[in-house]
């Protein structure tokens, strides 16, 4: 009679095994969705990834570096991609720097000029024309990413964006390459963006190996 007042006294609340079974089913469902999204996105974007890899490889051959950035969980994905390029599990290292790792720089810029400028100011300070700006966002709408891409384009950098949903504002921002994961789950988008970043890294190495072979 008092179930509506005390739902936690419901019979089900005694049943830990039932909860764990539910959690197991849920984990499998989510893992299956993640794997399917990774597979379909890699297939859909195969041409775009190869085109991006060719352009990135050209920049690296000319002496450029990757500058990666993002907010929140995406900042860690940006750091992860920079780490993958610079300190890979195998193969030669490639120059890449995350603009998300230095709390002195981030808080100085955030405090003095505002958070929308935390990445663009770093691009202005660090970037050379052969560098590559790589931004991660799930919404595609982060103001500080859009400003960083603007600053990068002004300086002649190659621009590569990872977005989710329908690409948001990044899709219309004139990036050289905008890789959109068509999903509305932030978690599944991030997992798939990591898989895309990993595929890009492998393709860049394949391009560089090819250019060395023909040199």
């Amino acid at each position, binding site marked *: 009679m008092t179930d509506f007042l005390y739902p936690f006294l419901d019979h089900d609340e005694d049943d830990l095994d039932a909860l764990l079974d539910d959690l197991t089913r849920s984990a499998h469902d989510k893992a299956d969705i993640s794997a399917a999204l990774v597979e379909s996105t890699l297939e859909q974007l195969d041409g775009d990834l190869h085109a991006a890899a060719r352009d990135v490889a050209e920049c690296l051959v000319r002496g450029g570096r990757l500058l990666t950035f993002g907010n929140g969980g995406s900042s860690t994905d940006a750091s992860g991609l920079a780490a993958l390029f610079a300190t890979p599990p195998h193969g030669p290292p490639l120059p890449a720097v995350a603009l998300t790792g230095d709390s002195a720089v981030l808080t100085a810029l955030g405090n003095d000029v505002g958070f929308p400028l935390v990445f663009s100011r770093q691009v202005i300070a660090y970037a050379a024309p052969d560098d590559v700006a790589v931004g991660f966002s799930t919404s595609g709408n982060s103001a500080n990413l859009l400003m960083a891409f603007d600053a990068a384009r002004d300086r002649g950098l190659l621009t590569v964006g990872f977005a989710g949903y329908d690409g948001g504002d990044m899709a219309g921002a004139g990036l050289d390459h905008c890789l959109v994961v068509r999903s509305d789950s932030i978690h599944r988008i*991030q997992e798939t963006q990591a898989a895309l970043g990993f595929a890009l890294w492998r393709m860049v190495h394949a391009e560089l190996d090819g250019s060395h072979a023909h040199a």
Partner: protein
Amino acid sequence: MGGLTNALDHVLPSAAFQLARRFADGATMWCVAPQWPEHARHLAVEFVHPVVVGARALPAVSVPGPDPVGALRAAVRAGDIVAVVSSAADPVALELVRRGPAWGATTLWLATGNGVMDSSADLTVRVDDADGTAPFDGRLVLHYHLLWELTHVCFEHPGLLERRDETDEVVCVTCRDDGRLAEVVRVSVDGHDVEVRTASGHEHADGTLVTPLVPDDLVLVHAGSVIARVGAS
């Protein structure tokens, strides 16, 4: 991704439930990833600033820097969670999960790799990684995303979180018949009086059986005496 199956069956869900129970009791989760600090930050931010509007913010802190063992020795309180993300053979991770019980912490080890693993963590979630790429291709991220998602499902069942039953033995080390794990805090000049830290607080033990002891040694205490030093340190 067939290798996910084992971790997702019961192990990861049980870990999520235990995390929810510790959080409900006021735990802070300390996140460490010695090889990939970005994963410690990602794990922490999931809990601190949830992407799902309305989901409860939970205390999680990533621990950067060169000495996570030293940092956590000072930071961890009894009842906290030490969450380690690393390959299965990482020496810093091993050190942390060995010391967790002496600090009164529940230890969670999210470990990549397919080799035989010696884990004394309370909760060990293996991430299938035959080729060493799981930390970079999204598969490791998936595992801690699922941990976060399932932990929040558990919060929809407060009755289960408040119950105390047989699942508590997962984190119980005080009844080990070979003694209780402790960390040496200080030793008297003659080595006889040793102050140690255990899951239940600081206490004094007789140090004459095991000499010389130095601060931070991991030891077993039984019947008021230090009876053995544990591990390499």
